[in-house]
């Protein structure tokens, strides 16, 4: 009996210890699909708990589809998490349409008034005049490049024009280095180079794709596929079948890697030093008279209406937006959230921000968020199918299929 009591006591103690290890009593739960940042969010949480008594208990779902299904069932059962991350674009509008997420206008009023946040960012996260999100990260989509590869190929400066960009690719290829790195890993990455070629060659058509005004089998799209196919034909791309995209780039696969700057943390974790081993540049436009532009991606943190009534949740979000919170988050994760007074998370982001300020670079929506969410995953799969068979014959079939679905979607709106 004594032994039983002994074991029971030990089990209870172990349970309490495990519980204490998972979350403090005052932590608020943050749900997301960002498992890649669990460690970083835990570090941030420790610092936040120390600073203001409330940490974040991160609950990560391993895949976006499972996470979306979880949020959908939470909405159906009337138990939307009090604090959760989401996406901008179509999915953002869809969830706001349910009327279950909170207007964060009061938080933003203070943040903008303090000069820490730009009103433009508030506008970026607003729908019908109300703002519903705070960025977990605000990432620009940059052409990262391997400095050693550029040096080996004799490229002495970053490409400033389309011709210089093409010239750099040719030099890299001639030096035995595959110029561009792109894969179909995780199924969603296929759109990246399509998006970039479209905004560099015909930004108006790119915008028109998202409003149904431009067809997916129109000439601007065909032209983008021709350029893309031609680059594949010249051997400019790495093997799209890799499942370790960031790790491959860190290992020296490919010289130029188009990706959101949130990947910098992953590259640094694999031994590359931002600013020393790699840097980044804003992709040049094909037509020099076009204004400089760059894709901006923001993953918002949102609150349910119930969450907005919980003082701990509001305090946790307010701290995340604060200068102190933004600096800790930048330091541990390499992500910026748009706080203008916060430190740059790394040398490459600092450089890109400076380039953008100097050129008056316009921020554009990422294709993933801009495309209607009903078409998103199907079309991403089509782009990936092109990358695996990058011929114009395949491109024509893909464009026809995409336009069929696109026309059907817009006819139904």
């Amino acid at each position, binding site marked *: 009996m004594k032994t039983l009591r002994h074991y029971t006591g030990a089990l209870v103690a172990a349970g309490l210890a495990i519980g204490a290890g998972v979350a403090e009593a005052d932590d608020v739960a943050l749900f997301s699909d960002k498992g890649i940042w669990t460690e970083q969010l835990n570090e941030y949480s420790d610092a936040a708990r120390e600073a203001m008594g409330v940490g974040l208990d991160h609950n990560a779902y391993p895949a976006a589809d499972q996470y979306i299904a979880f949020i*959908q069932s939470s909405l159906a059962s009337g138990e939307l998490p009090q604090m959760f991350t989401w996406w901008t674009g179509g999915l953002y509008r869809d969830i706001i349409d349910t009327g279950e997420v909170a207007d964060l206008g009061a938080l933003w009023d203070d943040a903008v008034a303090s000069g820490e946040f730009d009103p433009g960012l508030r506008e970026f996260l607003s729908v019908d005049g109300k703002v519903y999100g705070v960025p977990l990260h605000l990432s620009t989509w940059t052409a990262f490049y391997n400095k050693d590869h550029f040096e080996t190929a004799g490229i002495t400066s970053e490409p400033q024009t389309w011709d210089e960009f093409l010239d750099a690719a040719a030099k890299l290829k001639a030096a035995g280095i595959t110029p561009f790195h792109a894969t179909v890993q995780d199924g969603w990455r296929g759109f990246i180079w399509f998006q970039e070629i479209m905004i560099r060659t015909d930004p108006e058509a790119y915008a028109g794709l998202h409003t149904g005004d431009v067809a997916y089998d129109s000439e601007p799209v065909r032209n983008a596929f021709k350029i893309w196919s031609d680059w594949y034909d010249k051997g400019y791309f790495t093997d799209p079948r890799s499942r370790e995209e960031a790790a491959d780039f860190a290992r020296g696969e490919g010289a130029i890697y188009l990706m959101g700057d949130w990947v910098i943390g992953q590259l640094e974790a694999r031994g590359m030093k931002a600013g020393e081993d790699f840097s980044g540049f804003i992709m040049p436009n094909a037509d020099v008279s076009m204004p400089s532009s760059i894709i901006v991606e923001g993953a918002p943190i949102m609150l349910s209406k119930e969450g907005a009534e919980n003082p701990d949740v509001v305090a946790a979000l307010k701290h995340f937006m604060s200068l102190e919170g933004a600096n800790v988050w930048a330091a541990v994760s390499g992500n910026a959230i748009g706080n203008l007074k916060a430190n740059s998370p790394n040398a490459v982001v600092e450089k890109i921000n400076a380039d953008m300020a100097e050129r008056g670079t316009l921020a554009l929506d990422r294709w993933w968020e801009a495309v209607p969410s009903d078409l*998103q995953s199907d079309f991403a799969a089509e782009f990936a199918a092109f990358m695996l068979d990058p011929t114009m014959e395949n491109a024509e079939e893909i464009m026809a299929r995409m336009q069929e679905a696109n026309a059907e979607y817009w006819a139904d709106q």
Partner: protein
Amino acid sequence: MTRSEQLKQADATLMAEIGQDQLRHKIRKTERRNFLTAFAFFAPALLLVGALLLFPVGYNIYLSFTKWKKFKGYDQFAGFSNYTKLASNHAFEDALINTSIWVGASVIFPLAIGFFFALVFRSVRGEEAFKSIIFFPKILAPTAVGVIWFYFYAPDGVLNRLISLASGGDPVDIGWLYEASTITPAIIVTFVWQTVGLVMVLTLIGLAALPRDPIEAATIDGASNWQIMRHIIVPLLLPTLLVVTILSVLAGFTVFDLLWVMGSGYPGKRSLSLVVMMYFEAFQKSSWAFASAIAVVIGMVVLAITWVQALLQHRIDRMTG
């Protein structure tokens, strides 16, 4: 008959009627009590079947006739529009073809190979070791099997290296899991590798239960091994083989884990089978009504196949007495 006798007879008739009524009433009461007792016993099962099977199936059928508004649920009745959309959907067409291939392959290959192994290993030295080795993949989780075989088929994986070695060292770069023509056969090989052990064990159980007399009699009469196999063993084993076939058909229809894991890099993943497409539409696109229509189609096809199998079972039962 006197007036008094008439009254007595009327009384007797009345009493008889009252007695019958009471008897009928008593019988009815007993029947009702029996029914309520029986109902009390099967009510929990009825409740579970109703809540976990009948209601979801009925709700799923209803959903398939609605239009689903993302994150808000169904917002209007849509008639057969989800079904007409299915009819013109290229991915659905491919998924239907692939599912048919899966069902066919999941019956033919595991059955043929499992049956062969059962015959070979039932009487060799060290049969237990052989049987354990062949059954071993079945105890592994399909997801783990998918991951292992994903790397086996990878462009720089074991299979391409083996082909390269066999062909004189020239590099081989076949994307087994990235091309429409190779992905389904490649995953079917993995599926057969994993399931053949179970089929072998079930067949061995069936073989062990066969009566010895007809086989011994046929041997004494000079029948060859092939004749014994064809005219005695296979007919007597038919009930077992039918069970194996039913299990294989269901496995072919419902295979998901392997396809999801091994097809993770394939852009046409949703067209790999009807079940994968249903999951993709429901969980990746949140098109629940459309996914429900796919589920209804799967249910109808499975019902049709099960009906044919029940007919076969009936015929075999009659044949084997």
